[in-house]
């Protein structure tokens, strides 16, 4: 544990500016036969053929509801999960070429910050121990003074002071804890930070502090962010590119300005409508409501997986000739039967995976008829 771990060499020819490359990655859970009973557990397709690239120094956001697979995707990027198929390449090194020790060494470059700082710090370790552990694990700064210097630097970077070093997590406030979590993540000078809902567990007033801190750190340390969130406002504020996830797949991805400014997929459109940052806000203009809830990943609907809730499909079905009667209402035949194509936007800076990506979203009635 004391020797600095050599990082694996880059694969030649992949020396691009894309520090994270996720190529056609899938991750399925279950399906294994159970011990003794021999019954195969059902397969959950948590992540299904997802691809994206993140440019060095930028921020990529993954947006989705719970159950969409966004947390699994984050863990695939960090290498905590091995993909069932596809390849994750970090800084030119395909993760599949690494053994478990190599993966551990690679984590110096890719760090994960979790949602709930209260739970993500070991309650029995002081801030100092927590920070030290990161250095010990990677065999960095083994000299005591060097180590102290590094810890001092980092603690200052995240806006804490030396007095906090001797404290235990429960002696810190939520915001301070998240600062510690961030400090632990950056102490080994990583290049990529994967942030899993970094502010959603915090109080409103503290959220803004952390968001600002993240922005400062990115600028200062030239970090690359992959941020997982359900909050489109945060995406618009922080991210350069975004992937909107629904049932394990990206339904729309691309440049934030384009995806958020002019969403083409009906799901993104609904999310944007709900986000409702447009002031002035008032109850006289109720936001459109999306029907039903996200289906179980055990039973992903055929065709376009969004068709069970898609307002656009409902609307289109009214005039269409090829209509299928489903349990959730009438939808155009392609939606219910064919996987949707990924259509690039006219500008080419985003794609939407929808049969009718370029149809205009109708002003649908928000009165919902719930079936699930």
């Amino acid at each position, binding site marked *: 544990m004391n020797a600095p771990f050599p990082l694996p060499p880059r694969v030649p020819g992949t020396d691009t500016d894309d520090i994270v490359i996720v190529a056609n990655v899938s991750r399925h859970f279950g399906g294994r036969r159970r*011990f003794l009973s021999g019954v195969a557990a059902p397969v959950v397709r948590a992540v299904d053929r997802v691809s994206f690239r993140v440019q060095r120094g930028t921020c990529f956001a993954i947006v989705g*509801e719970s159950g969409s697979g966004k947390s699994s995707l984050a863990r695939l990027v960090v290498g905590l999960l091995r993909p069932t198929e596809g390849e994750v390449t970090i800084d030119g090194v395909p993760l599949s070429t690494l053994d478990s020790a190599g993966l551990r060494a690679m984590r110096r470059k890719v760090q994960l910050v979790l949602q709930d700082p209260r739970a993500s710090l070991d309650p029995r370790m002081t801030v100092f121990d927590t920070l030290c552990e990161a250095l010990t694990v990677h065999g960095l700064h083994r000299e005591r003074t060097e180590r102290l210097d590094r810890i001092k630097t980092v603690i200052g970077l995240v806006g804490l002071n030396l007095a906090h070093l001797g404290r235990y997590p429960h002696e810190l406030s939520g915001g301070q804890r998240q600062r510690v979590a961030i400090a632990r993540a950056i102490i080994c000078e990583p290049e990529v930070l994967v942030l899993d809902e970094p502010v959603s567990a915090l109080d*409103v007033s503290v959220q803004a502090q952390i968001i600002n801190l993240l922005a400062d750190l990115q600028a200062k340390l030239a970090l690359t962010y992959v941020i997982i969130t359900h909050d489109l406002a945060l995406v618009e504020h922080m991210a350069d590119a975004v992937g909107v996830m629904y049932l394990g797949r990206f339904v729309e991805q691309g440049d934030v300005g384009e995806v958020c400014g002019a969403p083409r997929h009906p799901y993104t459109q609904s999310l944007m409508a709900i986000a409702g940052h447009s002031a002035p806000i008032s109850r006289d203009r109720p936001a459109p409501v999306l029907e039903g*809830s996200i289906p179980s990943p055990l039973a992903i609907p055929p065709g376009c997986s969004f068709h069970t809730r898609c307002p656009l499909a409902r609307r289109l079905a009214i005039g269409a000739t090829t209509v299928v009667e489903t349990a959730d209402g009438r939808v155009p035949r392609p939606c219910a039967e064919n996987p949707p194509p990924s259509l690039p936007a006219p500008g080419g800076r985003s794609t939407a995976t929808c049969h009718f990506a370029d149809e205009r979203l109708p002003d649908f009635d928000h009165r919902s008829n719930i079936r699930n």
Partner: protein
Amino acid sequence: MSIMPNVLSAPERAAPVDAFAPQSRWLLLRRILSQPKGVVGLTLVTLYLLLAIFGPMLAPQDAFRQNFAQTLRPPSAAHWFGTDQLGRDVFSRVLVGARATLGIGVGGVAVAFLVGVPLGVLAAWRRGWIEAAVMRAIDVMLSFPDIVFALAVVAILGANMQNVIIAVGIVAIPVFARTARAVTLSILAEPYIEGSIALGANPVRVILRHVLPNISGTLLTLSTLLFASTLLSASGLGFLGLGTQPPFPEWGTMLGESRSYIRSHPYLATFPGLFLAVSALAFNLLGDALRTIYDPTSRRVARRPPILSLLRRRPPPGEAQQQSAEKATDLAVSVRGLRIAYRTGEGLLEVVRGVDLAIRPGRTLAVVGESGSGKSTLLRAVGTLVNPQEVAITAGAIRIGGEQALGLGPAALRDLRRRKVGIVFQDAASALNPVLTIGNQLAEAVTAGSRLDSETVRQRCIALLRDVNIADPERRLDMYPHQFSGGMKQRIVIAIALAQNPEVLLADEPTSALDVTIQQQILVLLTEIQKKRGMAILLVTHDLNLVARFADDVAVMYAGRLVESGDVASVLERPLHPYTQALRASAPGGSEGRGRHLRTIAGEPPLIGRLPSGCSFRPRCQRSANRAECASSEPGLRAVAGRDVACVFAEEATR
């Protein structure tokens, strides 16, 4: 770094007491000693340990010296505990036997611990076939009656102290392995384990540095509890003739040997028996005390002071009469001067410090605030659901639908709750009883306080489910909560709340556990129902977006007080209190623009009971800037520009 100075100047926060907290040995000791059973247990255990160490030296006589002329003598000055069947001094034997007895307990537990814990941790860590194999092996061991198992082990290995230790240790292995596996599994599910793995730590490190320290509390507790049962197992072996070797004294064997004298010479069994039972008791007490510390579920609330229980019975003094003069009857909810405090070990801690609220029928009032601002406690108090053993309403009045809600007897209280109040909690999953069908839980709400035939009840339940837009209600009645999605569960909770046509619906963050798309559905549903039934809604939330969309009025709460309240349009569009302003501004997106720094409120919300003097928002307030007025007294609400604001300098914002 603009935020740094603010953070550094933030007031030092005191450590809240936390059950999961790591602590120095002294802290653990303090917490053991704070419980009566901990004091007794620890004292006795310490005494026993001293006895085990010094016992043989203290023995006044040779514990092995036989004297056939002096057998079976009752206690006397020469032999405090009498003599045994060989004429040996029982007192000396008890003292000398302490070491062997406690040695068996310690040894047995150590054997079980050293084998069981690694097995359990391994099973939890590796899962798969290893886990299956370990669990099967444990099943096999458990299916042997333990005394029989120990009997066989001693019979095979031979009866001596070492083998007795091994036997009682082996018997206890399954318990350790099972517990270790269970707690390890729960620890492994903790995010900090994933955090450590994500950091690049290898498995050995994760187990040694993170898993073991965190399961140690539970295992320590278990060890003390098992210590007692190990002693008893060993004594059972002695009873069956397979205990330690005579003549060496050991309490269990002494007790077993003397059991035939229980009638003729009762003192012979009494002393070793007492020492044994009391040692088991001592370790059980200590274990219990430790469990109370480590097991959050066994934490007990502070005892209710008798005086306060009297207070609860009658209306709070003073204001109640005064308020009745107002036309409170027009209001669905009227709260005046409400003060609520938690009962803690250090006395009462105020969480709500004088709140006035009024909701007219058909209107929605949103209470907005950060965690710890007291908003949820306020809501529960209005719903008459605060637990009087934990929470005291020290002053003020609550009227619901014109009726006094405080100081009611149990029957009147039930009646009020049934007729006037419906409540919706944040977590629908925990708001529904997992073991009862939806139909059952709805029917309970429908029939409470009335007698209806079952068909009527059923129809009424179906109608309620329809009201909350649940399709196919007939079938759903027989389903259990876990068979529904989160959004559906929340609808059911709403249906239950609506069962008796309440005048006011209390909603505590009803959507914050739900996905955005579902949130929307639920709130729209609530609004529709409100329109239909004309009831008042008290909505507690931290999400200004929701307030803007769904509330008529808003009350912003900070540190147990309202700092600004009024109708939504005026408060949110032109907030006057610096806190409301900051809240509005700190949300990302919208007007702030991408990539720019957000405006932040410096520091963190204050802790209950540790409020700064003067205006409680003062340390975080940019407007205050060390003005003396802010520090001198806490500003009350006053009407400014169409709303109430609690800020001395509210007018500055209107300019």
